[in-house]
């Protein structure tokens, strides 16, 4: 019988975990959804309370009751989410939508955060790499200059002593 190497053990472990995850994920595919609840959290109450329609709780709110009825009617009529949101935006104005759309200038609202994050991430990685390369080259120069084996041993000892996992603290 062929002996299992550490690599094959880890591959099998990852396969088993992936299989378990896939099985469990598929278990959730039968839950019913509530479009009313979902859409109610994508629309605003128009009474000026700055709350989501699905969460507006003003006693005697003049708007939320009517809006909810309109939403129920639209869902019962079999309209798609987009059609319902467009209908509300046409009737109450763009501010009835709880988030910017993905069209026109509104799209900038969605793109800017990810663009900034991506640019900052790439910038940081490039910066760190540039610094590391500079440091490595400087270290190589220093190594060449100090060909003394005793000096090298001393540097290696310092590196070993300072390279302990999790040390350094806050």
């Amino acid at each position, binding site marked *: 019988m062929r002996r299992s190497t550490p690599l094959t053990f880890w591959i099998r472990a990852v396969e088993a*975990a992936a299989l*378990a*995850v896939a099985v*469990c*994920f*598929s*278990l*959730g*595919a*039968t*839950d*019913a*959804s509530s479009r009313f609840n979902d859409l109610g*959290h*994508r629309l*605003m109450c128009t009474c*000026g*309370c*700055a*709350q*989501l329609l699905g*969460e*507006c*709780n003003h*006693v*005697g709110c003049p708007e939320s009751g009517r809006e909810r009825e309109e939403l129920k009617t639209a869902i019962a009529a079999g309209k798609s989410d987009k059609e319902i949101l467009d209908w509300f935006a046409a009737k109450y*104005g*763009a*501010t009835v*939508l*709880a*988030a*910017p759309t993905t069209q026109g*200038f*509104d799209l900038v*609202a*969605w793109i800017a*955060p*990810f663009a*900034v*994050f991506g640019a*900052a*991430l790439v910038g*940081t*990685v490039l910066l*760190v*790499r540039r*610094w*590391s390369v*500079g*440091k490595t080259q400087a270290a190589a120069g220093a190594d060449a200059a100090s060909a003394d084996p005793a000096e090298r041993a001393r540097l290696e000892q310092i590196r070993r002593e*300072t*390279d*302990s*996992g*999790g*040390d*350094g*603290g*806050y």
Partner: protein
Amino acid sequence: MAAFGSFALLIALALAAYNLLAGSLALRLIATKQPTAVSPERLADTARRAGIASFVAVTAAVFALVWSVFTNDFSLTYILEHSNRALPAAYKFSALWSGQEGSLLLWAWLLAAYGFVLRLTHKTDVKLYAYAGTILAGVQAFFLAILCFAAPPFALFQGAVPEDGNGLNPLLQYPEMVIHPPMLYLGYVGFSVPFAFALGALMMRYPGERWIKVTRVWTMVTWMFLTCGIFLGMHWAYAVLGWGGYWGWDPVENASFMPWLTGTAFLHSVMMQEKKGMMKSWNVWLIFSTFLLTLLGTLLTRAGLVSSVHAFAQSSIGTWFVVFMGIVLAVCIFTYILQRSHLKSEHQLESLVSRESSFLFNNLVLLTACFVILWGTLFPILSEYVEGSKVTVGAPFYNRVAVPIGLFLLFLTGVGPLLPWRATSLRAIRRNFVLPSIALWAAVIVCLVAGVRPWKDGALDAGNFYALVAFALSAGVLTAILSEFFRGARVIAKQTGHNLVASAWLLTRRNTRRYGGYIVHIGVVVIVVGLAGSAFNRNVESEMALHDRISIGPYTLVQVGATQDSNANYDSEYALLDVYKDGKKQFQMTPEKRVYQPTGQPQTMVAIHSVPEWDLYVVYEGTNPDTGQPIIKAFLNPLVGWIWAGLVVLVLGTLVALVPALSPATAAVRVPARTPPAEPALKGGIA
């Protein structure tokens, strides 16, 4: 009292202005070493004393306003608009910050109090404190000028003085409102101090990094207050607004969160400067930005630029803030350009996978989160400017954009402390990351088996997916932190023979800063678990006649009565609901609706039953006008209690980190002096 208060504010302004001008002149003379008739050191000391005196003067003004509230002096417009005779005593204190003028006075007073402590402890580093005190005096002068000329709290009511006042906003008549604003303001205002130290240190080209050590306590205390203020605000929103949530991404909430994010970034990256002499420019700008964001937050909410359910006080002081922010920014940029050669890094990063780079990425994520929130808050204004029409940027936007960023930050919270300084070897990664990874995947499987399904009807359910990721990451991060404690405690246990718990305690005492930080991270994990619970909130709403019942989760609520009550401050009506679980009566809840006198403003008083698994949260929404029956809305909010418990852990960790670390034990041993050698021997035995 009005005249006394106004006069006290004028005196305070004059003293702060003297502190600013005389302090600046003295520091200039000291820097240029010009010979003068008056000793610049003495001049600087008079400036410092003027700063101390300004605190006394502002305190007198605060006393005058509080006195006026308690004596129902409705000749003052502010008291007339924010108090009434029937207002309970504790809420009379709240009246101090319930309006524009009062809250600015509170701001000025807290700033003066911080300045008072700073100026009293000037001997720590006389020159640095002189710079910081002078800069702080500039900020004080700005707020006092607003109080004297733009938003005077002692303005007199024109015409016949009414018998009673308009009363306090009902939303503010809640116990937490007595402590939430002062706490938040302590945080907001407190960031002026590290700002003053940073700017002062840059102006004087402070040698070394000692100024960071000096300001560390100030920064941490300020950060702790801001954190507490934000969470108290969340709890207030949860218990008072009655919509079942605690964070609505409201502009006022966002305004407090932004400086918290940059302040948190500063607390992390400043360690790089202390330990490695790196990121000096970055840190200076982080603290400048934090201070500017506190001003921006005030501008956004006070000037009415954005609408908010929390904006209790709005007026036209926006211009003052815009001008002041412009001046502050100009001074910061000018000083930075002039002194930037002083901020050169002493070291550079060696590896992409190291403790240093984890701090860098942590800062990157925190600042991105800050940008996202600022962007979302300002986008409606931008959209109106560009398109001519406003849009709403509400919770769906932030949930989609900010939540993934927050989860990435949580990931870094676990990874960062496991990476060594300088560079990481593969062996170290294997040793440190195996256990957290196992915990993470185990949590995924447990959650999936327990019913946390990221898919619904064949499509991704974002709420559940994020909750699953949050639970899994929390398990990984918690394991990583606990394994750090375990590793250190095991070494101490070997050395001392103590058990692991005692060793962990000793470990923490020996490096309070590091392990206090870990406890803060544990608090963050607990909070994240609580926040993730919101993905499983449910609610039910029903009109309930006598003996009607509604069920939610394991609970059944039965209406056993609806009644009314009245006192001088408000009229109330409430329902009596017996709560059953497994067929047995457990407790009774009394959700209430109040109508406050004299304004007639309604307010819900939510009934909350909290257990570790969830909160049963019941709202009395009023009565159906047709049937006269009460309408009850019940929520079952899982894990909410964990958020408040996490705050306690977080504060505890901060306090631990503030305590000085235990010094290594030393003992003096008496050693007899050697007998001096004989003289001839010293002289080489010359006979």
